[in-house]
């Protein structure tokens, strides 16, 4: 399997900027966000035939970016058990809250729950969009979201605005 250099460059120019910005929102550090972008494109390069058949390339890219970014954060928590979110370059309240929540989800929820919670509560996607990104049925997501909400609330790991909507 391979990808022509020109095609890789065209896809990179088209998608890398938005993927970097999304990865940056999740991992909070520039260098790690570029690592995420690189890994996403490495995945794309090894599955380029499947990528070409994607009806919605961006949902595929979001799925991979979410997985890679959350894995990056898992690795970081092992590498830097005392790492503080506040040490990161971006210190907006929203950014800090988001990464504090993700940190709890990664420790307390399973992989899928953590992905759903990230897409739903950090990215603010609708349940339909979450289903599309994760390649799951909307019915499945609908069922899981309420359970997830209760679980996250019990952990004290729901965003403030979600608590306000309560």
């Amino acid at each position, binding site marked *: *399997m391979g*990808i022509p250099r020109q*095609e890789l*460059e*065209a896809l990179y120019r088209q998608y890398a*900027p*938005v993927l970097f910005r999304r990865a940056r929102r999740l991992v909070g550090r520039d260098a790690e966000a570029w690592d995420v972008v690189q890994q996403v494109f490495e995945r794309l390069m090894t599955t380029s035939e499947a990528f070409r058949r994607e009806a*919605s390339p961006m949902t595929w890219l979001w799925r991979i970016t979410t997985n890679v970014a959350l894995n990056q954060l898992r690795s970081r928590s092992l590498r830097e058990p005392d790492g503080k979110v506040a040490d990161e370059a971006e210190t907006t309240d929203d950014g800090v809250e988001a990464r504090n929540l993700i940190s709890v989800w990664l420790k307390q929820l399973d992989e899928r729950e953590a992905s759903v919670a990230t897409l739903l509560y950090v990215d603010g996607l609708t349940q339909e969009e979450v289903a599309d990104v994760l390649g799951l049925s909307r019915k499945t997501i609908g069922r899981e979201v309420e359970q997830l909400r209760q679980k996250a609330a019990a952990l004290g790991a729901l965003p403030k605005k979600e608590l306000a909507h309560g």
Partner: protein
Amino acid sequence: MADHLSALELDIAVSGGTLAPDRTAHLGECGDCKQKLERERSAADAVRSRPEFSATLARLSSQPSVGAKVIPLWRRAPVLMTAALAAAAALVMIINPPTADDSRLKGSANVELIGETSHAVKSAKVGERLQLALGAAGKPYAMVLGVDEHGAVDAVWPLSGQRSGPAPKGARTVVSGFEVTEGSLTLVALYSDQPLELGEASKTLAGALKDGKVPATLELPGIVTATAHLEVSK
């Protein structure tokens, strides 16, 4: 008013994809979403100018899997791929013909198919490998359509998405490579200030054809065009 565009929808729009019709309609009438989209586009442009952007691409390009296989450029155009072999006489560059030394004025709109010798080619054999090069004349968005021997219009570049992609900088920048398949075709590059929708652009171009062929002078409102014809033989 409907919900504002989500982060996913904004990313789709910024990268040249197509939103659902109702979301496109919302974007058309929502000042907040328009502003947000412009901000996201500017931010994406800023990311492209960062040194890490080029460095990451360089790392990816150096990997062994890159360049290992050439994919047909017009993969989304099965009609073109299966068309009968053309034996018609070559009709070469229609607009922006090459100057004597085959170089082009910097800044002029341009589309070229480049062969192994790095020169623009006008004819090729099935199986030959060519590169698509664009010169957007300073316009920020580019789309390339292909018109086959039967006058059918289909998308050629960007390789994915339903809208124009970010135009490459430079007067002659390679954006993609492909293996020549059966059937001659004319490439039409559309350079614009705003991204074009694939459906609309295809319809507009189809309407401008004369007897199923791209006219010698192609004028589309608000769009800078460049055209190149490739005659394909067995």
